[in-house]
């Protein structure tokens, strides 16, 4: 839908003077009611023609009771700079919710959400997994915040063991991009990684992920740990493409389904411009085009063609 949403808050994330350029924008309006985790919106930063395009922003939080939608973004250029200056009380032009999000994001609401994924292998309402591992790289954590919040809030998911593995450049980045929802996890279920080792594990997120996939029993609140087979795990990931590729490959090696949230340059967000078109393969290996904005941004890790053949 096309909605004029009212800005509730719009400010830098984390401690002041952070220099990370990360912002959190909370909107009030109609979109929250229809959104689910993994989807995104396209927001118009200005009503002039420069910058020309809407900015796609991932949804970082959905509150259907209050009608509030949380979006997090990084200052990147003139569009996001203008966006960061919009004061509370102002209205912004938002298109959304857009795309298909995480399969678990679609479940657990009282109202049935439309399922667009009938022809998508790997997405067909698999039974609830025993374990969910959320893997994020950098600001990829933003769209996983919405999913994590959804999993923790909804009693239907309380038997699922949820673990987050999140990697960033350094301690400064992680501290500023951090959201309260992460603190709701038992400490042992939050694995932080930094490239320089300044916080948490030093190295890439794939290493702790591999370790977890190797572990059949892990600390947590799982009711019947014996059910804990590798097939009972679902991995949901968002981050740089190289990371998503590595995560998808690792999951395939362990026979674990993965869902990856892709990012691509897009102009319309509705499937018209074909700017965000990526290559998708079906189970027989036939390659076709999928639009990140319509068929995605969340795809099954198995269906993405990581090195496109032109």
């Amino acid at each position: 839908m096309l909605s004029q949403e009212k800005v509730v808050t719009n400010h830098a994330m984390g401690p002041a003077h952070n220099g990370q350029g990360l912002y959190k924008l909370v909107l009030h309006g109609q979109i929250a009611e229809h959104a689910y985790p993994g989807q995104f919106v396209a927001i118009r930063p200005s009503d002039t023609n420069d910058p020309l395009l809407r900015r796609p922003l991932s949804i970082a939080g959905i509150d259907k009771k209050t009608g509030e939608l949380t979006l997090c973004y990084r200052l990147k250029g003139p569009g996001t700079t203008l966006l960061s200056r919009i004061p509370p009380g102002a209205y912004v032009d938002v298109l959304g919710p857009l795309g298909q999000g995480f399969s678990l994001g679609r479940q657990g609401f009282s109202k049935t959400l439309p399922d667009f994924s009938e022809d998508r292998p790997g997405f067909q309402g698999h039974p609830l997994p025993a374990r969910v591992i959320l893997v994020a790289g950098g600001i990829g954590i933003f769209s996983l915040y919405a999913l994590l919040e959804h999993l923790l809030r909804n009693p239907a998911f309380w038997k699922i063991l949820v673990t987050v593995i999140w990697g960033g450049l350094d301690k400064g980045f992680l501290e500023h991009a951090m959201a309260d929802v992460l603190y709701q996890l038992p400490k042992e279920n939050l694995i932080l990684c930094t490239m320089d080792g300044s916080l948490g594990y030093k190295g890439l997120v794939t290493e702790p992920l591999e370790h977890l996939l190797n572990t059949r029993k892990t600390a947590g609140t799982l009711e019947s740990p014996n059910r804990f087979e590798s097939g009972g795990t679902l991995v949901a990931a968002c981050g740089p493409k190289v990371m998503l590729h590595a995560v998808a490959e690792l999951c395939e090696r362990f026979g674990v389904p993965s869902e990856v949230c892709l990012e691509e340059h897009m102009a319309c967000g509705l499937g018209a411009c074909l700017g965000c078109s990526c290559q998708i393969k079906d189970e027989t290996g036939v390659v076709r085009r999928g639009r990140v904005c319509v068929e995605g941004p969340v795809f099954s890790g198995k269906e993405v063609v990581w090195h496109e053949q032109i």
Partner: protein
Amino acid sequence: MSRFDRSLTIKGLHLKNPLIACSGTYGFGDIYTEYVPASAWGGIAMKGITPQPRLGNPAPRLRETPAGLLNAVGLENPGLKEFRHSCLPGMADIGTAVIVNISGFSVNDFKFMASRLDQEPNVDALEVNISCPNIKHGGMQFGSDPDSAAEVVRAVRENTSLPLIVKLSPNVTDIAAIARAVVQGGADAVSLINTLLGMSIDIETQKPFLGNTTGGLSGPAVRPVAVRMVYETYKAVDVPIIGMGGITCWQDAVEFMLAGASAVGIGTANFTNPLAPVEVLEGIEAYAREHGYGSLRELVGRAHRSGD
């Protein structure tokens, strides 16, 4: 309110209003229906079709530039056969003129598509794309030389009785010469401009930003170039002109009509503002009424009149 006429006819193609959704910005007319009914448009130019399916160019395909957009999609499309089987049947009750945009890599490609589409009941007109800047062979090459442009149009003309619109490239020295050639070849109308060839370099990687190296520029940044070319083409040919290039509001559309456009295309603006066609149509009608005209046709080419 007095009777007001928004309609126009291009050689057998009746358009209830002069607004055309530009090819490549509106899919097959099915994408924006939640925001604007297809029937709001005078016509929709469908995403360009080639004889065979194409996966298009590698990412990144888009780069935003000041008041503009560079794209190098590369004619990603399902191919003629799939288009005829899956897309065209659904267009029977679309409520607007269906303009099928065709592209090819040889004269034979164009002949083949024209003959296959000629008998399709849901096709109202063909737009012959001799101006795509994003494919290696064919495309813009046909549209850069008057003789080869005319040859393509003649080949299409001989294979169909459908109204023919020829989409012209701005990447030429003299667009009037190309326009005259395609009209001699049998064009019933011309649409212009396609995108301007451009490029952007990523100063971090020190490499071309787009996967295709170069791309086509659209959006408000190209508008003055497009207005000038419509103005020149109006002086050169007698067929209707569909003017396009950076139109975002009714004032832009009026400018094109004054320059000589009988119809106007809205393209890139749809991405930012899905309601653009509704706003533009209301605005140009109000402008024409304020000036005492009884039809939108009376605006066309007024910037050319001499005296007063």
